[in-house]
C-alpha cells in the first residue's frame, strides 16, 4: 500500500469508523442520530448496512461522505487511508468526494442533471480531480460507459438522461462513481427504484466491478436478499447503533439479535407453505421505531423486544461475541441462541 501508515497495525484497513456520533438539531431539541457506530472496511471487502427507516444507515454513509445536514454535530472518528475525515474542511472533503469515494444513490433520475449529456457528466469528475483535457476525458467517459456495459456506448455519449431507461441511468451513475478509480464505493439503495430483472443486472454489475477493481463496497439496503447476494459482512442497525455485525452467512444462520430475528420473520417468503389455502400471518415486531429525540437510555429495541429484562433498560448493552468476528449488542444473546 502506498498510503502513509498512521495506524499501529501493519495492514491498516481502508476505512475505519470509530465511535461515530451524529447529533442533529430538530424542532424538539438535539437528537442523537448515530450513537457510537464503529466498523472497519478493508480494500476489496464488501460491507452491508441493513435496517429500517431512521435506523441511521444512510446517516452513516452521509457522515463518511461529509454530506451531513447543516447543524449536525459529529463526534468520533472516520479514517480513510489513515486520513481523518471528521472535522475536515470543505475544500479538502471536495477533493476526496467523487475522487477517493464514489457514490451511487437510489434515484438515478434525480442524481443526474437533466440539462447535460451523460458524456459531460461522466467527464466532470475527470476534469475536476484528474486534470484531464476535454478530449481525454471524453475518451475515458466512453471507456467507462463500455465498462458498465451500456449498450451502444459510443452513440449514447451525447444522450441526455431522459433518453435512457432507469437501469441505463443507474449504469451511468455507476460510471460517474467509478470515473476516478475510487478506493471506496458507497451505494445507497442502488436498485430500490428498479424492476427486479434490472435490479439483478445492476447487482451483478456492481459485484463484477468490485471484484475486478479491488475497491471496497459500502452497501446500504433494506433488502435482505440484496445483501445476501452482494456483501460478505453485514451490520444490522437499529436506533443509531449497530445491534449485530458479522459475516453475512453467519448473521443469516444465527440471527443472534432479537431485532435481526424480527426482521427476518416479518419478511414474506416466496414459496412458503399454505395452510388451508392461506398463508399463515406474518410475524410482526410490536410497537414502532422510537423517534430519535425519544430514544431510551438503554437498549433502543427494549420496548419492542420479547426477551426484554429490566437490565436492558438501564444502559446500552455492550457487544457480545457470538462467533468468529460476529457480535451482537444484546444482554440475553447467550440464552436466545
Amino acid at each position: 500500500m502506498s498510503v502513509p501508515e498512521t495506524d499501529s497495525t501493519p495492514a491498516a484497513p481502508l476505512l475505519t469508523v470509530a465511535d461515530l456520533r451524529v447529533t442533529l438539531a430538530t424542532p424538539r431539541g438535539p437528537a442523537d442520530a448515530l450513537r457510537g457506530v464503529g466498523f472497519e472496511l478493508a480494500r476489496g471487502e464488501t460491507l452491508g448496512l441493513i435496517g429500517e427507516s431512521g435506523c441511521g444507515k444512510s446517516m452513516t454513509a452521509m457522515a463518511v461522505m461529509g454530506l451531513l445536514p447543516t447543524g449536525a454535530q459529529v463526534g468520533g472518528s472516520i479514517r480513510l487511508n489513515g486520513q481523518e475525515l471528521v472535522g475536515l474542511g470543505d475544500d479538502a472533503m471536495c477533493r476526496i468526494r467523487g475522487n477517493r469515494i464514489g457514490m451511487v444513490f437510489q434515484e438515478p433520475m434525480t442524481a443526474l442533471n437533466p440539462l447535460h449529456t451523460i458524456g459531460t457528466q461522466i467527464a466532470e469528475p475527470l476534469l475536476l480531480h484528474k486534470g484531464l483535457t476535454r478530449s481525454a476525458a471524453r475518451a475515458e467517459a466512453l471507456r467507462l460507459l463500455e465498462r458498465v456495459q451500456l449498450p451502444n456506448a459510443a452513440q449514447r455519449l451525447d444522450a441526455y438522461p431522459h433518453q435512457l431507461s432507469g437501469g441505463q441511468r443507474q449504469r451511468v451513475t455507476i460510471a460517474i462513481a467509478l470515473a476516478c478509480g475510487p478506493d471506496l464505493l458507497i451505494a445507497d439503495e442502488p436498485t430500490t427504484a428498479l424492476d427486479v430483472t434490472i435490479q439483478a443486472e445492476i447487482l451483478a454489475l456492481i459485484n463484477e466491478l468490485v471484484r475486478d477493481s479491488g475497491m471496497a463496497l459500502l452497501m446500504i439496503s433494506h433488502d435482505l436478499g440484496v445483501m445476501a447476494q452482494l456483501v460478505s459482512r453485514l451490520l444490522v442497525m437499529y436506533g443509531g447503533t449497530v445491534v449485530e455485525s458479522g459475516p453475512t452467512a453467519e448473521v443469516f444462520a444465527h440471527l443472534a439479535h432479537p431485532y435481526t430475528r424480527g426482521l427476518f420473520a416479518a419478511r414474506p417468503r416466496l414459496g412458503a407453505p399454505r395452510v388451508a389455502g392461506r398463508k399463515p400471518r406474518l410475524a410482526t415486531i410490536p410497537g414502532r421505531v422510537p423517534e430519535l429525540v425519544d430514544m431510551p437510555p438503554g437498549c433502543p429495541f427494549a420496548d419492542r423486544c420479547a426477551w426484554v429484562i429490566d437490565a436492558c433498560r438501564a444502559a446500552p448493552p455492550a457487544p457480545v461475541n457470538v462467533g468468529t468476528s460476529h457480535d451482537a449488542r444484546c444482554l440475553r444473546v447467550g440464552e436466545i441462541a
Partner: protein
Amino acid sequence: MSETPLLEVRDLVKRYHLPRENLFQPAPVVEALRGISFTVHAGRSLGIVGESGSGKSTLARQVMALEAPTSGSVRLLGRDLHALSPTELIAARRDFQMVFQDPYGSLDPRQRVGRIVAEPLIGVAADEARQRVAEALNAVGLRNSDIDKYPHEFSGGQRQRIAIARALITQPQLIVADEPVSALDVSVQAQVLNLLADLQAEFGITYLFISHDLAVVDHVCDEVVVMQSGRIVEQGPTEQVLQQPSHIYTRSLLAAVPGAGTPSARVDLLPQA
C-alpha cells in the same frame, strides 16, 4: 366456484395516442393493454405482476373506471362500469375503492384524518359519517382520537392504514391496491399485509393486488396474472404459477429475485408467545 364472478374483465384494450412528431405522419400510438381477460370471485385475491411498462397500472385505472378503455368491458357485480351514466357511476363507486402506493402523496396534507377518511361518503349525514369514520379507523387499528390529526403526525405505516380506512368506509366489495406496501419498511409491511388479510376474513373483501414483489404477491394472492407489454403471458393459481412457471417471462422474473435461496421468515426462532 360456479357463481357469477365479482369482477369480470373481458378483452380489455387501451391505446394511448402520443403527441404527433411529424406533420406528415400519423401520431404514434402506444398499446398499453392488448386484450386482457380475467375474472375474480368474491372474497378472493388476484395478484397482477409484471415490470414497469407492462400495463399493470393502466389496467388498474380501467378497472377503477378512471379511464375508458379503447375496447373491451369491465363488469363488476354484473354491471359494465364503462356503460354506466356518470350519475350511476358515482353511485356504483361505493362498491370499488383504491389504495395507492405512496402513503405520503395520496393523503391531502391540509385536511384532518376525519375528513380524508369521510371523503368517499356521499349524501351521508354528518353524525353518521363521523360514526362510520370511527368504525373504519377502528377496523384498521387506529384510534378515535386520531380523527382530528393531520397526516404528517403519522408514520408511513399508519398513513397507509388511513388510506385503507378511506377505502373501507363505503364498505366496498372490491379494493384495487396498487403497490400498497412497496414504500413501507419490512416490519411495517408485515403489519399492513396482516391487516389486509384480517379485513378480507372479516368483510369478505376482494382484492386486485398489483405488485412487483413476487414474495408479497405469493403471500397475499390466491391467483396471479403475469403481464408483459400489455398482454397476459401466464395466469393461474399463485402456487402453480410461482412454483411451476410455464412461461419464460415468469421464469425470468422468478430467477431475478435476489437471494431467493436465503433463509427468511424463520418463525421458529421467535419466542413462543
